[in-house]
């Protein structure tokens, strides 16, 4: 069986009803912890968007809010990264993963108190960490800016979640372990290990010199590859077959995709330091692993594409599917781009430029964040037992998010390429290069405004559904009137 759990049971209408009741009981058991994670994730998304806008404007207008130490660019930028990476992305990922775990273990969620405690601690840790960065207490290590006291709170919270996941997994109903669970299992295990190893080697007992940089970027890349990516793939592997009502195309491709990701992604970190003061063999190993990433990526893309084949028309109808498939397509694009950026000839140009920032947003937003939006659109109505009140708000969210991120990635990619080509030519004065990037940075600020407006629409939708406003609907809220669902 390769479907998460087929929606039309072959066993007949009675069994189908029993399945539906089972699922409703599982959803009800998830309500409090998952909504806590979702709600706080969305709040952090708004906070992170504000920091993003401030940082973007400061890059073109250095005098903007310049007289407050707390709001200087060098503090607002890491505040943005940490608010969206740990506040929004991780919190959303945990919420989605909890719900998927309960659904896929096929038992109602138990030990909810552990998760509620974890949610409270997690938010406390992020709040303390972001405040510390603004106050000037950052570690100044990219992706690891949170000072020890905040990092420790996050670690404890995460330990709670990992313990809960193991307990849930042990109490699962016997049978097939679906591919989404492999990814969640991997992510729940990799992240706390990674986070504790790296914090101890960089912050508690820092190692020497440029070994720090190697470990820094081993973390910086693994947090994407072994934490955010697996959760987003777990969600995609669940949502696409579930919404289409058909099994995933190939079980064997999903096995190949999972193990090749586990094997290669964790070796990519060194490509952030090409040409830097680190051993040449390490750079080469990371370049090879980065190119090898094409295997899991193409495998997974084929698997998703073949599952979608014949059903693309549903993208016009289903919000959850449209966000999810948008994310899945961007996963292929961003990963292929990432492999190419590890090649020395291209890296020479794109390293140290806005091109890399464009790539990062293509990954964390166009792929990861869009996938999380899709999952939240699917899951929330099942927890609240109320449909999304406004199709217009969802539509607005989708178009603002998709055009916003497209504008951001295109402007940073082109601006970054120009910057990189000019940096490569020593005859072009540095300040000329700075001047040439400014129009592209203005475009990026506008893209941020689009994204932030989209986030406001999403947050409003979320508040309205929690309050159960609007009229009671019989079926899900769709983009189009037609009912072409299986």
């Amino acid at each position, binding site marked *: 069986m390769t479907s998460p759990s087929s929606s039309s049971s072959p066993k007949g209408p009675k069994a189908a009803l029993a399945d539906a009741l089972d699922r409703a009981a599982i959803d009800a058991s998830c309500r409090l912890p998952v909504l806590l994670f979702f709600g706080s994730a969305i709040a952090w998304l708004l906070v992170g968007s504000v920091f993003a806008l401030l940082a973007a404007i*400061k*890059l073109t207008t*250095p005098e903007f809010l*310049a*007289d*407050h*130490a707390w709001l*200087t*660019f*060098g*503090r607002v*930028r*890491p505040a943005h990264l940490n608010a969206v990476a740990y506040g929004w992305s991780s919190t959303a990922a945990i919420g989605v993963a909890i719900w998927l775990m309960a659904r896929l273990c096929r038992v109602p969620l138990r030990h909810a108190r552990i998760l509620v405690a974890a949610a409270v601690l997690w938010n406390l840790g992020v709040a303390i960490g972001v405040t510390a960065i603004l106050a000037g207490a950052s570690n*100044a*290590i*990219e992706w690891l800016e949170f000072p020890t006291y905040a990092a420790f709170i996050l670690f404890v919270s995460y330990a709670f979640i990992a313990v809960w996941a193991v307990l849930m*997994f042990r109490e699962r109903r016997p049978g097939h*372990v679906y591919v989404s669970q492999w990814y969640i*299992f991997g992510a729940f*295990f990799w992240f706390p290990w*990674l986070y504790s190893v790296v914090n101890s080697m*960089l912050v508690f007992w820092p*190692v*020497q*010199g*440029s*070994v*720090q*940089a190697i*470990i*820094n970027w*081993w973390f910086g890349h*693994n947090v994407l590859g*072994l934490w955010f990516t697996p959760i987003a793939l777990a969600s995609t592997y669940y949502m696409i077959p579930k919404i289409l009502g058909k099994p995933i195309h190939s079980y064997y491709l999903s*096995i190949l995709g999972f*193990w090749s990701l*586990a*094997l290669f992604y*964790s*070796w990519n*970190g060194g490509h952030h330091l090409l040409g*830097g*003061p*680190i*051993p040449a063999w*390490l750079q080469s*190993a*990371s370049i090879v692993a980065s190119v090898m990433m094409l295997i899991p990526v193409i495998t997974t893309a084929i698997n998703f594409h073949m599952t979608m084949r014949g059903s693309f028309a549903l993208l016009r109808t289903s919000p959850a599917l449209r966000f999810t498939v948008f994310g899945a397509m961007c996963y292929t694009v961003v990963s292929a781009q990432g492999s190419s950026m590890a090649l020395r000839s291209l890296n*020479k140009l794109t*390293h*140290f*430029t806005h091109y*890399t920032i464009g790539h990062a947003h293509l990954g964390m937003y166009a792929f990861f964040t869009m996938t999380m939006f899709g999952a939240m659109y699917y899951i929330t109505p099942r927890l609240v037992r109320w449909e999304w009140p406004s199709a217009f708000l969802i539509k607005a969210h989708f178009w603002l998010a998709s055009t916003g991120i497209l504008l951001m990635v295109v402007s940073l990619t082109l601006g970054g390429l120009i910057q990189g080509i000019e*940096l*490569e*030519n*020593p005859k072009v004065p540095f*300040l000329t290069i*700075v001047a040439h990037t*400014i129009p592209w940075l203005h475009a990026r600020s506008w893209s941020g405004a689009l994204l932030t407006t989209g986030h406001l629409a999403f947050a409003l939708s979320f508040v309205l559904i929690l309050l159960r406003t609007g009229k009671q609907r019989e079926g899900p809220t769709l983009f189009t009137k037609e009912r072409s669902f299986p």
Partner: protein
Amino acid sequence: MNRGLTLFVGILATFTLAWAGLVLIPYLQFGRVTDYVSEETGQTLPPPMSGLAQRGHEVYAAEGCVYCHSQQVRGESQGSDLARGWGVRRTVARDYIGERPHFLGTMRTGPDLSNIGRRQSSVEWHHKHLYRPQSVSPGSVMPPFRFLYSLRKIVGEPSADALKLDGLDAPPPGWEVVPTPDAKALVAYLLSLDRSYPLPEAPTE
């Protein structure tokens, strides 16, 4: 794949392998590089940082300078860093042994600072630049760090370390702009950045 154990062992093994390869081996290979005493001059290289510069290193971290400035000079085959005059040789692991945290950086919104103390050695220039970067570097997008300076009324004689500001930046008559201890430390750190000394693995000729 129905067995939790297979999954667990695989997840553990792939991760441990990568940790050994990308963390443990580099650490064993050059995690304990020591400084080098030049046979010709008897100088310890890299030169140890002064206490004030060390304090400036902390200010550099707190203000997030690393998000726009790298501190690594790549070799000739990998970029134009040397041709731009950002260094006289590529930087190597030994250059960074005293740095915690590291400031290798990933972005060049501003220029590389590996050798800024050598390229721009004037204390006055650095203070003017930090106070309002555009005053000495027109077209720069660097934010001003006026919050590292204090404006105060001149009592008796003007302070010896008061900034010599003119035009837009000049304080009102009877007032002066003086650097805070943080600003002084930051400038001391910037001036200490000079990785032009020769090392056996990175000769300057």
